[in-house]
């Protein structure tokens, strides 16, 4: 089960260890093309499953276990999940250069598209046609945000404490106008302490759970 740390140079070592896994040879061009395509087609999110299907199932670039290990890292770190996964895969396959190229290729297509739309907006945003059009766009954007609240709430609420944390966070930001970084610095230690591993009670249960699905 040892999941290899991002260290693509480890392959030349003989297969004597317990993992017979060989990091596949992936050219940098292939990486650029792969993540560029994902960046191009990353409409509307929901990409994690898509990346897994392509990189794990189709290309065999990493095992399922490695993928979920990466996902577990990315989920507790700040930043967009898709970007984190891409960097992890890039680094896993081709080291630092691979990570940099993965980041660059996944970001370039949406960057260009969004810049283009932004310039269109500032050029034509004031006329009544685009105002009407944007009313619909922002209304849907609001619906999407609301759905994210539901999804995040469903995943995070497992007790009264979680509900209290949601409300306190909301009030600090909404009424206290506190910035995100300070909210996190203030609340994260409290919440982590609250959810601290309790060895004496159920340490064994936690250990048995192991890695996420």
């Amino acid at each position: 089960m040892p999941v290899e740390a991002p260290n693509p140079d480890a392959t030349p070592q003989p297969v004597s260890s317990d993992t017979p896994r060989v990091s596949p040879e992936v050219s940098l061009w292939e990486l650029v093309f792969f993540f560029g395509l994902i960046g191009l087609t990353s409409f509307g999110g929901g990409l994690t499953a898509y990346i897994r299907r392509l990189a794990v199932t189709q290309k065999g670039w990493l095992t399922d276990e490695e993928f979920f290990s990466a996902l577990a890292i990315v989920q507790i770190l700040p930043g967009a999940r898709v970007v984190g996964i891409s960097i992890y895969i890039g680094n896993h396959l081709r080291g630092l250069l691979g990570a940099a190229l993965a980041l660059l290729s996944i970001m370039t297509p949406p960057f260009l598209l969004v810049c283009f739309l932004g310039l269109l907006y500032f050029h034509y945003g004031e006329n009544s046609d685009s105002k009407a059009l944007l009313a619909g766009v922002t209304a849907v954007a609001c619906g999407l945000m609301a759905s994210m609240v539901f999804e995040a709430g469903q995943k995070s609420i497992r007790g009264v404490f979680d509900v209290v944390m949601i409300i306190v966070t909301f009030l600090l930001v909404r009424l206290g106008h506190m910035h995100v970084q300070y909210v996190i610095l203030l609340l994260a230690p409290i919440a982590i302490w609250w959810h601290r591993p309790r060895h004496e009670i159920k340490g064994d249960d936690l250990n048995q759970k192991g890695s996420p699905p």
Partner: protein
Amino acid sequence: MIQTFGHLVALFMILSISAFGGGKVVLPTLQHQAVDKFHWMTNQQFVDLFGISIIDGPSMMVVTLVGLKACLQYGYVIAILGALVATIAMFLPSSILVLIVGRYWDSWKTSPWHESIQRAMMPISTGLILAAAFIIARHSIHTIPTAIMGLIALCLMLFTKLNPVIMIIAAAAISWFFLR
């Protein structure tokens, strides 16, 4: 101009490492800074740009557009440079963090603290997303038709697997047709 770049870098580097739970959680702070503190744009423009940005790419492409608008007064070329600076400042620090943590992950993965951190951070990001949703709602739902469209989008997101981009394009067409 250099000063604007400096503000963008300082702001987005902090937001980058604060975005626990994805880019959406930094929206309230981003709105406050971009609108109230630096006066780069109005609230309406901020929400419009957010709507535009979710069409493609990872969450938080709105930072690209904030960078664009912040530098727009200096011309289109500088504006795109500003967009680039903002995007790099937002995505680089968190990416470096992934690499660093990824390196030491194996020894750390089995630690029960991993689950503690995950469970602790999720309600905080939920609260932040809730606050973000309020900001977007206040500047996007002003009339009954927009409220209906927002509600329909919410239901479609919750109960179907419809791609949100299709909804955005459809809503743009519908509202252009009816609200023009």
